[in-house]
């Protein structure tokens, strides 16, 4: 065992820390679910890009540094500790990009990746539909062949599409074989949200802001060069990365370490907190630390070539529950102030509402428990 970080990584950490200290806005940016806030967050992404800090794990030609997962964890720890803005481009850079590296053609990479890194294109996700939530394979949005124009005509509806209210592009799954069922006959498509026939209707989330949207497709043409991977192999393309590094990169430990440290700070500022509350503060702080160790350990194994499998489901269960607990504990420390939206500590309330989405998105925790039970523990399918 060796828990020392090598000097090159420490130097990287120092560089990131220094840059963030000089560049993170002193005042928090306005909510990214407002037009001006979205624009401000996009500007911030461009500054990160100029410093070559937007996508550190990507190849240099696309604006990255070719850093490995361990450096990425270092970057994220510093990023969250510095209180830097939420990443408005995260759907693209953390969720779509790993799929692109695995399945995109060179032409597609050249067309999309640099623009993604620079936040020229912000991506929205197109998975859930009114009749397909946890049971994603029940999706019905279809893409019909258009040989004349060399592409697909998309009809149907996606919903709960994060960032779609202001995003430029969408990635998602569509049924290209009308006679297919379930996981077969699906294709992974990339489509611009300003294409003719696309209607985006923002949905106000629990906090009242349009954090996601429903998106309607009415004969939207998608050319063949916007198919990712093979036609009919969409399920495989989509799932390959849910169990690869994406399972790790969805929620980096730095995020929860920063929250846990702020929780400890809040507890210390609270006069005579009840012992039971202090216990919960301690448990939250320790679990954030445990999450960090687990992710580091998984990342180290990934660097040695061990595939990341259902660890990503265990991961998701752990961080989503941790995030809720951290915020619940903070609200209990705030007592009667907890629901005041103009309170100096109101950030906890925002964070709490956001944390409640954690056990729901990216595969509900019930689905994740099924995955752990069936793929890790090899229990029979129901």
């Amino acid at each position: 065992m060796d828990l020392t970080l090598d000097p090159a990584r420490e130097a990287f950490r120092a560089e990131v820390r220094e840059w963030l200290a000089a560049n993170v806005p002193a005042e928090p940016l306005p909510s990214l679910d407002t037009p001006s806030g979205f624009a401000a967050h996009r500007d911030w992404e461009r500054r990160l890009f100029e410093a070559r800090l937007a996508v550190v794990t990507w190849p240099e030609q696309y604006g990255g540094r070719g850093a490995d997962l361990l450096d990425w964890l270092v970057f994220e720890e510093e990023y969250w500790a510095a209180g830097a803005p939420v990443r408005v481009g995260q759907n693209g850079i953390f969720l779509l990009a790993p799929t692109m590296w695995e399945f995109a053609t060179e032409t597609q990479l050249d067309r999309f990746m640099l623009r993604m890194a620079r936040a020229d294109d912000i991506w929205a996700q197109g998975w859930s539909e009114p009749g397909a939530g946890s049971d994603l394979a029940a999706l019905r949005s279809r893409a019909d062949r258009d040989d004349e124009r060399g592409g697909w005509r998309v009809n149907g509806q996606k919903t709960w599409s994060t960032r779609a209210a202001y995003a430029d592009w969408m990635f998602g799954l569509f049924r290209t074989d009308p006679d297919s069922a379930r996981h077969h006959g699906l294709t992974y498509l990339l489509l611009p949200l300003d294409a003719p026939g696309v209607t985006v209707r923002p949905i106000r989330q629990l906090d009242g802001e349009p954090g996601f949207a429903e998106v309607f497709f009415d004969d939207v043409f998608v050319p063949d060069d916007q198919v990712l991977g093979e036609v009919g192999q969409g399920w495989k393309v989509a799932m390959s990365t849910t169990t690869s590094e994406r399972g790790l990169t969805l929620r980096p430990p730095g995020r929860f370490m920063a929250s846990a440290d702020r929780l400890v700070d809040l507890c210390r500022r609270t006069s005579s907190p009840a012992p039971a509350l202090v216990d919960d503060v301690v448990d939250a702080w320790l679990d954030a630390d445990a999450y960090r160790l687990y992710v580091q350990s998984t990342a180290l194994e990934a660097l040695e070539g061990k595939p990341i499998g259902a660890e990503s489901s265990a991961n998701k269960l752990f961080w989503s529950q941790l995030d809720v607990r951290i915020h619940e504990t903070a609200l209990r420390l705030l007592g009667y102030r907890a629901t005041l939206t103009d309170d100096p500590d109101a950030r906890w309330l925002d964070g709490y509402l956001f944390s409640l989405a954690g056990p729901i998105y990216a595969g509900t925790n019930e689905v994740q428990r099924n995955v752990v039970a069936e793929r890790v523990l090899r229990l029979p399918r129901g």
Partner: protein
Amino acid sequence: MRLRPEPDALEFAAAVRELLTDACDSDVLRAAWDSTETDPLRRGRVPGLWKRLADIGVPGLTVPEAYGGAGMDLTAAVPVYVEAGRAALPEPVVETLAGSALLAAAGGDVAAEWLPRIAAGDAVVAIGQGNPALIGAAQWADLLLIDTDDAIYAVERTAAAIHPEPSLDHGIGIGRVTWQAAGQSVLPPVNGWDAFDVACVAAAAELVGLAQAMLDMAVTYARQREQFGKPIGSFQAVKHQLADVYVANAFALPVVYRAAWSVAHHLPSAPRDASHAKLAAGQAAERAARTALQVHAGIGYTYEHDLHMWMKRTWTLAAAWGDATFHRDRVAAAVLTENPPPRVP
């Protein structure tokens, strides 16, 4: 950076597992539990097993080479202790690791006399506090290291009155020790908390192994046992509980590894990390025990099924070396302070 033991340590643990699978299967364990042996030195243990483990180097693993041990650091012991837990091994494992760490740190005549014998499996050490003192493995101990307000005493078995205490856990060898300070050897001054932290790491590793074993038992049972015409493991109500056990245990193991590193290197965060390990592993194992019982249901509630031996080991080990409340308080002091020690790594 590497967040798990070196390959040779893992290989050694695999050898220990192989030996225990053969020499301490559940029939052997049950025989030890139900033995009518009256000599407290042997009661509850598996005859000859400690010597066999000593022959491959278990008790001497972390004993310095100068005292006849292998001189490995604490991180190498963790996977071995996980195996001890997996087998619910009824031997003085935690006591040996912590006791020998205490002796090695103290040095002097007592260490020179006892450490080689402990490493060879010829003597058993136990470790505790106060007078009278309730000490795990005291029934089996040749040497008792007892911390008091003024010094740590090395009390030989013959110089103490050891009253065996019956326990729900037949593999604990616990006894009430009454002794006289006058005439006993005193260890050179050393911080007893360091050995306590070693014990926490050892117990935590054992708890992870116990939890893994109980999860395995429950999963195996859930695949076989049928109700409503299906294996009960196909029901989500069962699946989800077992998934939660898996998650708790999977997240405890790196915490235990990290604690071993911090304690081995005397880092400022060592006490906090050791407490974290004991807390996380204890809670994971208690959850595993509770869930395994629920999944086994009626048969799990019987004495004839093996599960009870693992559950009872879990309960006593989770309570020993500081329970959850103790360790949470200890962490609170190290986290809520002005300048908490930095996280490792």
